């Protein structure tokens, strides 16, 4: 067990000694560099669930992938070859997931994705040992398209970075959206200045703007959009409106509609308890990433109650598939390709005292699975 993980756990959970551990879980996630806030939230949510379970027979090995695919592959090799883990989880980014997951599942280790959901792993590349506990990548974009219809938008301007997830985002939006396109733009990955794009939006005569710009890109876009004086309504997936970055966008995000499978004000028992426990443990409102980490851990815990992944992997897999746990999102089941079937909500950014956060305003898609399940021959 690495010192990093030891310190972490020692400070948070009173686990038993490593000798008595029966289940070993490897978590590879992004804990340093620009994308670290997502990985930290997933980890913190996950550890909170473990702590609440009170189990002392689970050993966590947590490593930082630095958002680099080759580092992630190397860590996965180490966890499987040297640490002998039974279950793996934690990866945030689709490109890292594509690098790691196929070889992990091929070596008979379970992988539960707390964030990334690339289409390949949902379709032809699906695997009995792979479970996605977050969403298929297209889901939130599809919901944005569906919401655009109900809001009466007929002429959307859509933009995303020029990389696979961006291309998926724009096609995902158009899967349900029925109106015309006022324009379609691919921006550079990591771009920070959107003046040129905003000018094009202004000139296009659009009645709505859909954008997928995760992380810092979204912050820059929203701030500059507000400053340009444009008042065409904006919609986007939750990634640009999560708790971590809303504070950096500030008032410029107020009133913006976004789609998410989770919201801090979802009124189910599990979620109310989760939000207050998380705030108490970490002193901040949880993000959707934290909720995904929390759900992933609880799913694993529920399956561990039934079977041990080492002794009886088939029974453990069946238990995972049953998804018999109290999800923070309310109803949660797995489709035939081990991807969630869940409601996707519409939220609005609001101000609560000093804090900016999200409030539910409706449901965009009910019991949504994904577009790739038919390609999965499992």
């Amino acid at each position, binding site marked *: 067990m690495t010192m990093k993980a030891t310190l972490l756990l020692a400070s948070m959970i009173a686990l038993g000694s490593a000798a008595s551990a029966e289940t070993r879980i490897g978590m590879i996630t992004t804990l340093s560099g620009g994308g670290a806030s997502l990985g930290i939230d997933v980890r913190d949510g996950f550890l909170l669930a473990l702590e609440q379970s009170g189990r002392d027979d689970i050993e966590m090995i947590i490593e930082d992938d630095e958002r680099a*695919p080759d580092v992630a592959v190397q860590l996965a090799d180490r966890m499987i*070859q*040297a640490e002998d883990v039974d279950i793996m989880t934690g990866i945030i980014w689709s*490109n890292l997931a*594509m*690098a790691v997951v196929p070889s992990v599942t091929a070596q008979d280790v379970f992988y539960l994705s707390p964030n990334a959901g690339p289409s390949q792993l949902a379709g032809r590349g699906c695997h009995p040992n792979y479970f996605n506990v977050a969403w298929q990548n297209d889901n939130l974009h599809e919901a944005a398209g569906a919401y655009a219809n109900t809001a009466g938008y007929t002429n959307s301007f859509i933009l995303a970075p020029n990389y*696979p997830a961006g291309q998926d985002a724009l096609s995902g939006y158009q899967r349900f959206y029925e109106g015309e396109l006022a324009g379609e733009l*691919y921006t550079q990955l990591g771009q920070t200045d959107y003046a040129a794009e905003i000018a094009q939006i202004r000139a296009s005569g659009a009645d709505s703007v859909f954008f997928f710009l995760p992380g810092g890109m979204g912050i820059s876009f929203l701030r500059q959009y507000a400053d340009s004086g444009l008042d065409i309504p904006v919609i986007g997936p939750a990634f640009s409106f999560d708790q971590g970055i809303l504070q950096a966008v500030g008032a410029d995000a107020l009133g913006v509609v976004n789609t998410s499978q989770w919201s801090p004000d979802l009124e189910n028992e599990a979620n109310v308890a989760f939000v207050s426990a998380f705030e108490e443990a970490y002193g901040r409102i949880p993000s959707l990433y934290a909720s995904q980490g929390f759900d992933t851990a609880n799913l694993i815990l529920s399956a561990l109650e039934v079977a041990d992944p080492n002794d009886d992997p088939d029974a453990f897999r069946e238990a995972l598939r049953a998804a018999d746990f109290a999800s923070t999102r309310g109803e949660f089941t797995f489709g035939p390709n081990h991807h969630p079937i869940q409601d996707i909500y519409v939220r609005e950014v609001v101000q609560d005292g000093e804090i900016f956060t999200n409030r539910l305003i409706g449901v965009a898609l009910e019991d949504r699975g994904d577009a790739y399940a038919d390609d999965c021959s499992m």
Partner: protein
Amino acid sequence: MTREGYVNSALVAALIGVPLWAHVAGEPFTITLATRAVIFALAAVGLNLALGLGGLVSLGHAVFFGIGGYAMGILAYHAQIYSPMFPDTLAIEGTKSMPVIWLVAILCSALAAFVIGLLSLRTTGVYFIMITLAFGQMFYYFTISWSAYGGEDGLSIYIRNSFPGLNTLVPIQFYALCFALLGGALWLSARIARSPFGLMLNASRQVPHRVETVGLNGQRAKLLAFVISGAITGLAGALFADLNRFVSPTMFSWHMSGEIMIFVILGGVARLFGPVAGAVLFVAMEHVLGDLSDYWHIYLGAVLLGIVLFARGGVIGLLAGQAKGHD
């Protein structure tokens, strides 16, 4: 034997002994780490030819590393999905055979090095550093948006490619393969350094005008060195892709170029075993420091800084004293 000779022998002994011990002790991950170090060393041996011998400070060697990686990725991908490249016209079949992949990787990266070298060698000094960086960025942005081969997601190859007579899935066998290639590259660069060509390169780095005066073409020698250098780094890229069973645009990023350069400087520029020592030390630091703290990059930076400021000539220079390089 000189002091540098002892240091080099110790390094070779460790590179043979540690993986063998790990194999016997059942520590496959140690072998994976050693393989990573050896592949990085191979990439850096390539750069060292341009950098140490030719004085060409290339901050774009990730281009060749990436081309080698994508040569492996694309060939193995087409073999994996059983469909040829350009099905309508050329119908080139993919392959899972390492020797074929290596050959393609070497040829492609040599060709790229020829074109980039031809254009870049018109400049010198900082301009050369920056134009090679610019070529690296071009390839990086191109592959990110190249959706046919996965764009930023990259390409996953599910099973490691094969080599006749070996089972490359066994870590120690794949390691032996990489180690042998590193040995070959070291032998080649020792030969080049001692050859008339190498001597001319060295001379044209130090006193270019004299070389030109006696009627030799220093520019052409530099270009040839750059091409060989790129080809070796390309081969390393193909191996790295096979180690990870994965290629992605990060192989083209300027951080990668910087890291390859760090291996060379860390070990000692223009020393035959410098790149090997640098790569081994870097991989070891990555592994050890990464466990200390979430903020381990700070320590890594401090160590690198310490070596530049207080250990001129890199690790080998520190251990072996201010001996001259292999000229």
